[in-house]
């Protein structure tokens, strides 16, 4: 997950929400995600979901 998805994959996801970004938008989003996704991976390790029954 640490690598940002490709522009084509980002476009596909955006379109499932009815949003149609430009190529420039997707490049800007990838720059954000390049920083955010590794941090989010760490966050999931820090705050794992509760075990079943907890």
């Amino acid at each position, binding site marked *: 997950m640490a690598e940002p998805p490709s522009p084509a994959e980002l476009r596909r996801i955006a379109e499932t929400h*009815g949003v149609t970004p430009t190529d420039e938008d997707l490049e800007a989003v990838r*720059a954000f995600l390049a920083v955010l996704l590794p941090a989010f991976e760490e966050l999931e390790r820090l705050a794992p*979901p509760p075990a079943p029954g907890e």
Partner: protein
Amino acid sequence: MSLARLARGLRAGELSPREAVERYLRRIEALDGELNAYIAVRAEEALAEADALLRARGRGSLWGVPVAVKDVIDVAGTATTAASRVLVDHVPAADSEVVARLRGAGAVVLGKLNLHEFAYGALTTSTRFGPARNPWSPDRVCGGSSGGSGAAVAADLAAGTLATDTAGSIRIPSCYCGVTGLRPSTGRVSNRGVLPVAPSFDAVGPIARTAEDCALLLAVVAGHDAGDPTSLDEPVPQYTELLGEGVRGLRVGMVSSLVEDADAPVAEAVEAALAELRSLGAELVPVEVPLVEHAGTVQQAIQFPEATEVHMEWLRTRLADYDADVRARLLVGLFVPPEVREAGKRAREAAVDEIRLVFEQVDLLAAPTMPVLPPRIGSEIVELRGREVLHRLVLIPYNSPWSLVGSPVVSVPCGLVDGLPVGLALVGPRLGEATVLRAAHAFQLATDWHERRPVLAGTL
């Protein structure tokens, strides 16, 4: 002139509400062409409202005081633009709850203040209305997102203002503009009639000259609003009456990592301010707050998708009308997986528990409001300990921890570096506004940083 002093003068009949409004309209006319703090000035309406006060029964605590509000806060009959092309001809029929409370206390609304588009950025440089300029150095930003509020107070273009803060939007412009700003506890002040950024973090609060001014404004707008589901139903202390209790015996925890990581001259100014608090009787203790390290990530995991949800319909139909930076931030929220947002919510609960333990050891936390000086307009790069870094990244550890846990934070001016203001942040436990204001007031009684004015502001 401070809001408190002006309010006393109005009550004493030293000037009329119309004269007060005319004073600020003259200053706006003379100075705002350069500063661009205002998006809309309600000159005729404000004069009429000032005249009507003479016929009103009763005189509230803000009787005749001219104030202005950030342009995400609804004022009936005046467009709310959020500094965006997305909101064209959006004229609310009703006042926001906070504006209704201001009017109830006798305040006159001068106008709507510039901001970063949709309050979603820290520079106040929208392409629709242009950048707000820092009165201390007009080639620099005011910070944001409430940049117009900071500039208006610094240049004395309003006696006080209301702004909003999601991840630093009151604190950053207060710091960069050399004025006093309070982010109240989340839920302390109604958000009804205020455009949201991320509702679980948003807080309306004052930016004004002094802690006393902020206390006067907070006393009017704080308190439960049954029409706002995020509003807390908790008693509201008498903020102005508690201001004079001083800091003797207060335990102030200096957040060591945030002081050490700030640019050296900023850290020196903050350390000098903390020494002043110690000389006034506070007990100063260095503390480590582990949540500082991860708070930004946790807030972003929740805030990005929350903000995107607010804008979803406009993202589908008006995407090209957003400025590029705000458009990118809003699009990012589409790509935050639900499991990351859930992890963020769990981490926020853990952070709230952690900060509760910290506030069992100290009464307040202290840190630089911002670790750097404001960037030049057109640049997002700032210098931090000899390195060039992105402004939007350096602000996160100084602001997100306190937004994440919903704590009140006041920023007070505490020095000048290269002629630009530096701010001290005092953080309290949830609903501890009275304590942060009391400490800020004690600091301001002993120092004059809050009285320093930019050269431009003194030209009238």
